[in-house]
């Protein structure tokens, strides 16, 4: 992919690279600054791998003080900064620029405090999502948001993108599970937002900063809410002959007053690919598969699954199977969580992340099929059905420029469709560069101006992750007109 325009690098900054590297080294030490070609190349892209840019230099911060020093220097010298956690962004959120340094927090990965009485964990921002749960699990607790990349992605990146996951139906997304954090602003000022108490004084800065895609500051420490794990959890599989029946079944479950921890939907192409990869035991002859997971004691789980089964009956499921063991549950989830990787083994794919009102699912799936068919491309659909977050995976051949072009066109049409039916461009992956130019599909110039002014409050010179989120074209005009 290549159709997204990236700004021309500032030649003065690029020409000054050696001096900048030297200055950074004097601030944070020789070892913390990567300036050689091979070293920098490891940071030239994120999980939107079609776009690559060599950064000016990479700083591997080891402390909040390091981050503050580097930002203060960059602010004074007018150098752009791209924050990076683990580089798992699917929207190009961590894509570098030739005239920007990458400031990575992945080395800051310590657990600072676990406080089970107050149900909080305080960690450095470079820790991985799964490592937080790993640290609190011995106490019987877990950290709820679970993006599919949780083994690799950092909590810093999760805050940047307000990441979700499969279990958000019950537990909410990142912003609902963070109590406070330390953030370094572009001028080097360190501020603490929130803390271990449940609400912060004044304006809801945490609400604004979480999901701001690294454009407001660099988050270095985070206090998250941890939850006591349920006594047990178990998924069940339900297969249907139509997306309509499966969608109606989800509505009926939620309408009945049961909130499962997760309701995941896969269409036939997704089922086949994922099962081939994970040997999950999915039924192969259905059009739509639901994975419904509930939690509680043994008796509660059985009662809930029975109730869900009874609710599902009228929708004519052709397969109903409750996981019979821990191993089977793990396989069922492995199939779903490795969907992206599994599909990546058979084809290049373009992962979309729109949201739609659940009631529109059947119609949207038909239209997505039509859109991709019109562009001569195949598509597999994965859907967090409980919360309306749809991931169509458009399959294409990356070495075929024409297919690349068509995949991007189809993707834009799919996201426009999501907005038209009442949804949005991105549910959990963020805008990044990928959906930047589609923002006007969802927002008016005034809507965008109101947002962009907030960026200016936090980062007056627009040095942090600058070419992301807002369309490049018309930025000046929008800000001036406003």
């Amino acid at each position, binding site marked *: 992919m290549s159709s997204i325009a990236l700004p021309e690098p500032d030649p003065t900054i690029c020409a000054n690279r050696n001096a900048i590297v030297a200055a950074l080294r004097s601030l944070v030490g020789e070892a913390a600054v990567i300036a050689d070609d091979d070293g920098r190349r490891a940071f030239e892209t994120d999980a939107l791998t079609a776009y690559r840019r060599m950064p000016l230099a990479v700083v591997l911060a080891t402390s909040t003080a390091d981050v503050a020093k580097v930002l203060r220097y960059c602010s004074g010298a007018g150098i752009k900064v791209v924050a990076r956690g683990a580089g798992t962004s699917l929207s190009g959120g961590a894509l570098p620029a030739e005239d920007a340094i990458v400031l990575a927090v992945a080395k800051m990965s310590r657990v600072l405090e676990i406080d089970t009485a107050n149900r909080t964990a305080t960690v450095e921002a470079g820790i991985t999502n799964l490592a937080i749960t790993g640290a609190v699990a011995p106490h019987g607790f877990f950290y709820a948001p679970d993006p599919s990349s949780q083994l690799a992605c950092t909590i810093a990146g999760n805050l940047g993108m307000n990441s979700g996951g499969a279990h958000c139906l019950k537990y909410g997304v990142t912003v609902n599970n963070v109590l406070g954090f330390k953030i370094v602003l572009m001028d080097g000022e360190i501020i603490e937002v929130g*803390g271990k108490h*449940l609400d912060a004084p004044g*304006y809801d800065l945490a609400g604004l900063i979480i999901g701001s895609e690294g454009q407001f500051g660099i988050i270095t420490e985070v206090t998250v809410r941890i939850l006591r*794990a349920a006594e047990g959890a178990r998924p069940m599989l339900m297969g249907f002959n139509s997306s309509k029946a499966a969608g109606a079944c989800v509505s009926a479950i939620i309408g009945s007053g049961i909130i499962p921890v997760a309701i995941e939907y896969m269409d036939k192409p997704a089922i086949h690919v994922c099962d081939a990869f994970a040997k999950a035991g999915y039924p192969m002859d259905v059009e739509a598969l639901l994975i419904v997971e509930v939690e509680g004691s043994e008796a509660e789980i059985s009662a809930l699954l029975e109730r869900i089964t009874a609710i599902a009956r009228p929708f004519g499921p052709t397969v109903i199977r409750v996981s019979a063991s821990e191993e089977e549950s793990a396989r069922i989830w492995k199939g779903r969580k490795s969907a992206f990787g599994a599909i990546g083994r058979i084809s290049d794919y373009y992962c979309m992340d729109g949201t739609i009102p659940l009631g529109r699912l059947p119609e949207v799936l038909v239209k997505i099929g039509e859109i991709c068919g019109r562009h001569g491309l195949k598509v597999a659909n994965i859907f967090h059905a409980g919360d309306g977050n749809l991931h169509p995976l458009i399959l294409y051949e990356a070495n075929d420029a024409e297919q690349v072009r068509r995949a991007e066109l189809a993707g834009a049409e799919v996201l426009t469709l999501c907005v038209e039916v009442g949804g949005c*461009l991105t549910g959990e992956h963020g805008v990044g560069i990928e959906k930047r130019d589609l923002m006007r599909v969802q927002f008016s110039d005034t809507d965008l101006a109101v947002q962009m002014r907030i960026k200016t409050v936090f980062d007056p010179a627009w040095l942090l992750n600058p070419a992301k989120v807002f369309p490049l074209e018309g930025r000046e005009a929008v800000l001036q007109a406003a």
Partner: protein
Amino acid sequence: MQVVRPAVEWELASLLREAAERAMPLEIIGGGSKRAFGRSVQAAKAVVTSALRAISLYEPSELVMSALAGTLLADVERELSGKGQMLPFEPIDLGPVLGAETGLGTIGGVFATNLSGSRRVLAGAARDHLLGVRAINGRGEAFKSGGRVMKNVTGYDLARGLAGSWGTLAVMTEVTFKVQPKPETTATLVLIGLADEIASEVMCLAMGSPYEVSGAVHLHEPVVGRLWNATLRGAGGSVTAIRLENFAKFIAYRKERLGKLLGPYGEVHAVDEATSLAFWSELRQLSALQRQSTPLWRLSVTPTSGPKIVKAIAQHMQVEAVYDWSGGLIWLGVPSAADAGASDIRRVIAHHGGHATLVRAAPAVRAAIEVFQPLEPGIDRISRGLKAAFDPAGILNPGRMHASF
């Protein structure tokens, strides 16, 4: 005071545009239930949202509702109740403790002040349930943010940014929020006569159990004596109450297990469901703190530090406390004083962490001290920047939260 009640969004927008041009301050009012909270606004004109009143979208199977900002909270809850649903964050009605009637609150006011009740400790705050807004800023610009789906990271999260901003950044015209099924059954376990430190342990232990406790409160004895519910009023000591909500089939098991867990701390009483519902319902309007004129504070603290903070404050003044949110929220009644105890309370809070807001006090007291927690310098600078970005002429509720912006 001149009062205007715009009935449509463009009317409100043009009103604000005109006020901005003349730099004319406006007081922004929903139902007026909380006008006596915070600093009073010096404005010749008030904008009341009461004519923006309708439920514009309700999809029970998608757990989502949209309503115009002036819609009464009572109307929203009645509509939800008809489909067996509710606002999970259980917003409280602050009107009565402030001397206003009950039931005045609007849904816009609930989100503008981020009002959450006891279930907040399990389900999250009002702001956690706000999915989208339409609003007019202090420039008179109509804008939207968020949407009607639960997951949405398209652009900055302005909806949450407006939650708890007390009408100082923008006037919301429509809010879209997440709702939840009502629990089938409610049960409450009660322990009587616990000291604060022990009650704190009990609440934290309950919250750390796997039984999805949806309320953990502790009431000082004098407060208990003013409860409306006769059963609990006669408890004869402080009351620590732990709530379970779930399907009837599961409650017996969870009650039994939780009772065993808490047993070592004292006799665990189970009250009947009617008492249970009545108790949590009166807590939603802070029943026992009404009909008083003495100062009332709201402290937001790390739960386990609550008893230490109350004890430290008690060395300076007589206090009575209602601990909610497992001790993370303390409603603290103190005797009248020139500064309503602010200097001592804030000094203690500064030592232990957290923040304090003066909820009820005579107007002269509220005008003289910082009602909301004074902000740290970095936060203060950003907050002023936000105010200037949304409302450069400073027309929206000036001074409502902080004296200088």
